[in-house]
């Protein structure tokens, strides 16, 4: 993953729990230093180690930690240097999800090692949407769920996650989210 992800995780911990807690996480995670550069690609293991150690240190399960991280990632992206890009992606939750792959496509032309997930709207109605999330990575679906929640909050869109279904897949992750809107 790119340094920008690890930086965001650090920012979340420091914002909520302080520098001392983060240093404790760094020490326990075995990650040698936290001088992450946004545009540098780091091994996924670094992010996984930081996230799992954060969960351990905070005394919560990894899913909860990733959910919180997904929420934070979306919120901070909507307010930092990437705000223009994020805002251009859509004016509401459904439009944003529809354009998300397009945005990832464009990111891929700059972040050359970027291997983004894919989002597909399977069904769409006035009441809600069914969204498929596909990734070659494992275990990040709680992150996506936190991200979806934060997106709905951003667009002031009432949202209820009706079901989360793990779809059969040869490798990686394929989740199906049924979301009620209204």
């Amino acid at each position, binding site marked *: 993953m790119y*340094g*920008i992800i690890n*930086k965001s995780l650090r920012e979340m911990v420091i914002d909520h729990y302080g520098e001392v807690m983060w240093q404790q996480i760094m020490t326990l995670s075995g990650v040698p230093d936290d*001088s*992450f*550069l*946004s*545009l540098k690609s780091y091994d996924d293991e670094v992010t996984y180690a930081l996230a799992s150690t954060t969960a351990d240190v905070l005394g919560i399960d990894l899913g909860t930690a990733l959910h919180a991280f997904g929420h934070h990632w979306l919120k901070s992206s909507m307010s*930092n*240097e*990437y705000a*223009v*890009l994020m*805002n*251009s*992606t*859509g*004016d509401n939750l459904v439009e944003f999800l529809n*354009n998300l792959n*397009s*945005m990832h*496509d*464009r*990111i891929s*032309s*700059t*972040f050359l090692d970027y291997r983004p997930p894919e989002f597909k709207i399977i069904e769409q109605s006035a009441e809600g949407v069914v969204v498929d999330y596909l990734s070659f990575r494992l275990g990040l679906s709680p992150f996506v769920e936190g991200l979806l929640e934060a997106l709905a909050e951003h667009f002031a869109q009432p949202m209820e996650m009706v079901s989360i279904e793990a779809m059969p897949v040869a490798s990686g992750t394929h989740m199906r989210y049924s979301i009620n809107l209204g």
Partner: protein
Amino acid sequence: MTNTILLDHLYELFSIVAEIGDDGYVSRASDVLKKYQPHVADGSVRFFDSFTFKRPSGFSGGAQESRSHIGELFLGIAKSGDFAVRGQVIQTQDGKTIFLGVPWLWWMHENVSGVTPKLSEFPVHDVQMDQLLFMSTQKTMVDDVQALNADLMATKSHLERTNVVQQSFFNHVSHEMRSPLNGVISALTLISDEPLSDRVTELLRLASHSADRLLEVINFSLESAAVEAGAREEKVSNFDLDMLIDDQLSGGQPRALNKNIELIRSGDLEFPSAYQGQLRLLKQTLANLLSNAIKFTPVGSVHLGAELLEHGQQFDRIRFYVQDEGPGIPEHQLEKIFDPFATGLVSGTGESQGTGLGLSIVKRYVKFLGGEVRVDSIVGAGSQFSFEIELRPISRDKLIEAVAATSQARVLSGRVLLVDDLQTNLYLNGQLLESLQLTVATASSGVEAVNCLQQSDAPFDLILLDLNMPDMDGFDAARKIRSVPGYANANIVALSAYTADNMRQRAQEEQFVQFLSKPIQRNELIACLERWMPASAAEVVVPEVAEALADDHFVDSDYDGSVLAELAKNIGREKLPNLVSKFLEESAVQWEALRLALQEHNLDRVVLQAHTLASTTLAFGLIDAGTQLRQMENRALSGELPHLTELDRMSQTLGLGISKLQAHLTTLG
């Protein structure tokens, strides 16, 4: 080419499409153009009239003129100020003008707030969104680098502070180690004088050798630390380079003669000017290199040389070198020779290899001098250590200061009146002055001093006056002295064990030309005499004294034998028994006077007697007793009357110190 593409396909490839007639009005427009410029899209306003075009250069508008810029980039800013386009113009086979483009994202990002073109409003092949992402990322990268830089600076600052603390601790420990180690060495030396078995003698030799090496390491370490701490602030001095080199050769001569080695000056034998530079570092560097060369040369000669390489406007570039005829250093070891503790690299000279710190220190000295030391060596033939530095040439007229610095010869003569109420101090300091070839008279009070001045046939050049005398203090005494005819402008120097700034300041404001703290240090006294005594026409040279020997030191918290060793060095061992005897007699009297003052609750007398006893005991190295007396004096000064029983406890400390002093005196006799 454009004619082969169906017109409708253009609407898929570009988000802004305007089909423009010869009259300039739009007959058909894409959805994005309709959204942002509806009056253009619906044909109310001519297309080219609704934009101001920054590009193509010189384009003033109109459909017909636009066709002369086919293939060029059009950058247009809507006259409404909330939209901009970028694109190009094509002409179809049937003569229609078509503008094909996209929103000009960067201009809108920079100039229009609240309006963000949507991702879907850009064809997928358009890179403006990618560009925006890249620019945003670049900004975060700059922020990242700045944050990293700030972290690095903070870490560097922290490390520097930590280094200072560690160095300070290291120095302190080294100093603390040196004193007891001197005691160990002294004791080992004394034991070796006793009749011992061969085995014990051998063990003692090993112990002495180890202790000597340890002392060498500590001394080198302290010297090295001192260089680190002070080299950048090292004073610049004027000096004669010829004299400096000759002095170095003279300094190495005794050891060279001992080994039957010839010391030879090489290179330029006379430099055209004197120089200005970090003399102490240069001297120490040459001395270390010369010492090393003598050490590793079993037979033959050692060359010390300097040569002017380049005469510049501001600086001369000079090469220094020391060439030995030692065993040489194998090539693979040359890189390591300047590493700290690099020993055992050279063998076959029969010399002790030392600590391996000397060349490491030389390397740092030379670095501080602005050069880099190098070594060239041939195994079996010898080694040459050399370095090049820049020195500022100066006129030889400016060399008066340098002569003193390089030759250490001092010219003193004259008459000194020494005034102190303590016989010990009069004797001790009198001997010190006489050892400097001066004529000395003594007086034990202000009144006696005035009488001495009035009755003396010859005038006194300098008066050293104790500030703390019982009947008339130094300030009053100085006033009386200045009333004696011929002494109104006399040079009177204050002596006192009080070293507080206010005492020093008062002395220099009232009556005194200088303040010297007691016990008087020989070097400080010489500097004072050089300042205030007249120069002699006969050029009497101050005799250099031998270094105090380490085995003369008995050092612990009760008693610091280095003080007595220093006295022996300054006035001669033969005078010590008389001096110590005077001290013991006088301190016994002072002790009783202090006891009486405590019994009578006379605070002023307690202060005076405690002060007097503290300064005399400290002058003989009785550290604990002197420190306790000084504390008593300070408490009495603040109005607190010490209890008499404290004096009894203190007498044990004093007794212990005196017994060690007497034991030490015996060894020196």
